[in-house]
């Protein structure tokens, strides 16, 4: 069961490679596989809810020697999200991706990306995590570079260079950790590190890994690669990147710094909180400065990462559950924004605020599809973003982190500003005279574009109106990760 989230995309990717020139088949396979992934994710979630943390050993070798796959609530929630996002994006790209990209293996690459993401969420082995990171990374490299205009190339080189630095740091960190502890299994590491004095190299390795993951997660001051590259590739690609890639970084930060390293090894909360605050603030300022939608949204992605990190910095069950909820919310809401932007760009041929306008009258649905997720991202109740923020703010006030809370609230105002301002530009402002004629979209294409967008926007809305079921799950997930013994027992059998 635990292997299915890896096997499905891998098998699909292989099938896609074998059916290299048969695009229709590749497309069909892609959609089926993502749907299957979603279903498997849901089954996994149900199992974990019933049985607690579950684990499986690759090759039937006992932990900590063989590679362990582990699913707790957090990772199974994220697998579900991956399946959902994969499905939405795959359907969307049926209409959005041009034939040339498809003929260069777009769909198999997407599956490999999903493979890497699922692997990172499920693995219980630090080196295996590195491998999945690389799988994810190389797939994202290629997806990013498919196409090949100048902007895209420039974005790709920055993305590649900075992410490779992260990989190098990560690899060094893992090697050092093995040298110091003699193990790679995360649960085993947790136990070994508990019994070791937290002096010497361990804090340094913790800092090293923190930096490596922070680069992946696009945290200040490591986020440069994200705004530098996210505006260039096709919108479907960027949607899945923004929804999942940086979240993997955050997931791993949460995992590693709750499970492996006891909290005190991190140089300290203030540092994480400062990074979180600056990420929020500078991301939002970047978004304010951008006159082009995709770039604005790229900065918006950065800004929201700050909130996710804030939960880790506060380190309470409430804060972490807020972070987890926020992570799931932001995947849906932000993706809906990106996808709508893609539709707008397809209609008008532009995503620059100055060149857009006047879509409100003819496309009220499109207007709502932008406004609802935008307000959700800004944290306006009763949309999904509000609850995550509420939990974070409550947690922040409980911990007496008033400055952090003030920044979080202030950034919400900024977010509200730039997103509604953009909305006004796109929909209310009359179209400039220079604007090109609107493109016609045939109905089947329209449906392929709008169905996933609508689904995600509705998800955000429903999640806002009925937050309890998911929030309860997130809260249990947070409690689970704050109490690693269940994880460790699930992997190693008994607590030594």
């Amino acid at each position: 069961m635990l292997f299915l989230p890896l096997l499905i995309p891998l098998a699909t990717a292989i099938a896609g490679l074998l059916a290299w020139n048969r695009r229709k088949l590749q497309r069909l396979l892609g959609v089926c596989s993502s749907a299957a992934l979603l279903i498997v994710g849901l089954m996994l979630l149900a199992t974990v809810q019933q049985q607690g943390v579950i684990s499986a050993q690759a090759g039937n070798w006992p932990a900590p020697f063989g590679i362990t796959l582990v699913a707790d609530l957090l990772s199974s929630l994220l697998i579900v999200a991956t399946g959902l996002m994969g499905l939405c994006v795959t359907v969307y790209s049926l209409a959005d991706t041009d034939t040339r990209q498809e003929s260069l293996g777009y769909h198999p690459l997407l599956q490999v990306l999903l493979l890497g993401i699922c692997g990172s969420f499920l693995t219980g082995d630090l080196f295996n995590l590195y491998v999945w990171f690389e799988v994810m990374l190389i797939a994202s490299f290629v997806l990013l570079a498919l196409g090949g205009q100048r902007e895209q190339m420039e974005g790709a080189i920055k993305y590649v260079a900075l992410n490779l630095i992260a990989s190098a740091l990560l690899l060094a960190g893992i090697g050092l950790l093995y040298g110091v502890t003699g193990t790679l299994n995360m649960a085993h590491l947790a136990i070994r590190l508990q019994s070791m004095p937290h002096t010497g190299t361990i804090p340094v390795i913790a800092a090293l890994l923190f930096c490596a993951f922070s680069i992946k997660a696009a945290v200040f001051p490591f986020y440069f690669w994200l705004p530098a590259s996210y505006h260039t590739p096709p919108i479907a690609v960027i949607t899945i990147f923004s929804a999942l890639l940086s979240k993997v970084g955050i997931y791993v930060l949460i995992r590693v710094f709750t499970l492996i390293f006891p909290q005190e090894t991190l140089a300290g909360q203030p540092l994480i909180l400062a990074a979180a605050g600056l990420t929020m603030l500078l991301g939002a300022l970047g978004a304010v400065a951008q006159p082009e939608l995709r770039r604005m949204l790229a900065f918006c992605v950065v800004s929201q990462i700050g909130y996710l990190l804030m939960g880790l910095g506060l380190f309470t069950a409430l804060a972490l559950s807020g972070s987890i909820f926020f992570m799931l919310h932001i995947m849906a809401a932000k993706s809906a924004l990106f996808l709508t932007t893609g539709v707008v760009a397809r209609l008008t041929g532009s995503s620059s605020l100055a060149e857009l306008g006047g879509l409100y009258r003819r496309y009220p649905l499109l207007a709502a599809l932008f406004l609802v997720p935008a307000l959700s991202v800004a944290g306006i109740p009763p949309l999904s973003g509000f609850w995550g923020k509420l939990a974070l703010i409550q947690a922040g006030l409980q911990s007496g982190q008033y400055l952090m809370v003030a920044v979080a609230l202030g950034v919400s105002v900024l977010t509200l500003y730039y997103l509604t301002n953009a909305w006004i530009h796109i929909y209310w402002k009359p179209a400039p005279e220079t604007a090109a004629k609107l493109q016609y979209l045939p109905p089947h294409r329209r449906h392929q574009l709008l169905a996933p967008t609508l689904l995600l926007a509705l998800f955000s809305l429903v999640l806002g109106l009925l937050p309890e079921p998911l929030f309860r799950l997130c809260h249990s997930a947070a409690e689970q990760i704050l109490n690693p013994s269940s994880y460790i027992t699930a992997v190693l059998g008994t607590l030594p």
Partner: protein
Amino acid sequence: MEPVLAVVIGGLYAAGMYLMVRRSIVKMIFGLALLGNAANLLIFTVGRLTRGRPPHIPLDATLPSLPVADPVPQALILTAIVIGFGVQAFALVLIKRVYQTVGSDDQDVMVTENQGLATRGTGREGQGDEV
């Protein structure tokens, strides 16, 4: 020998880093290659060195005769080398394509990400935030 190798590792990191931050992206790929070697050597060294004894089990035994080199770092490095090679090959071709599309290997030419930003400041001047 480990302390010496530590210096070698440091040297590789320094050289790799220096090459990475050159303006020419062609040099970057050399930097990447050096960093990869540095990381591998680091894993190797930190996993402790054992002279000459590979982790192989002789034909007439069921256990290797100790002391023997630690096989785990070796396996890790092997994986890392291969992954590094794949990524490096891709990066190499990417750099070539970047050079072809941009027409230069100078990083300072690759700043289209801020296109339109610099002009925006002046465009806003008179009218405030035009909505």
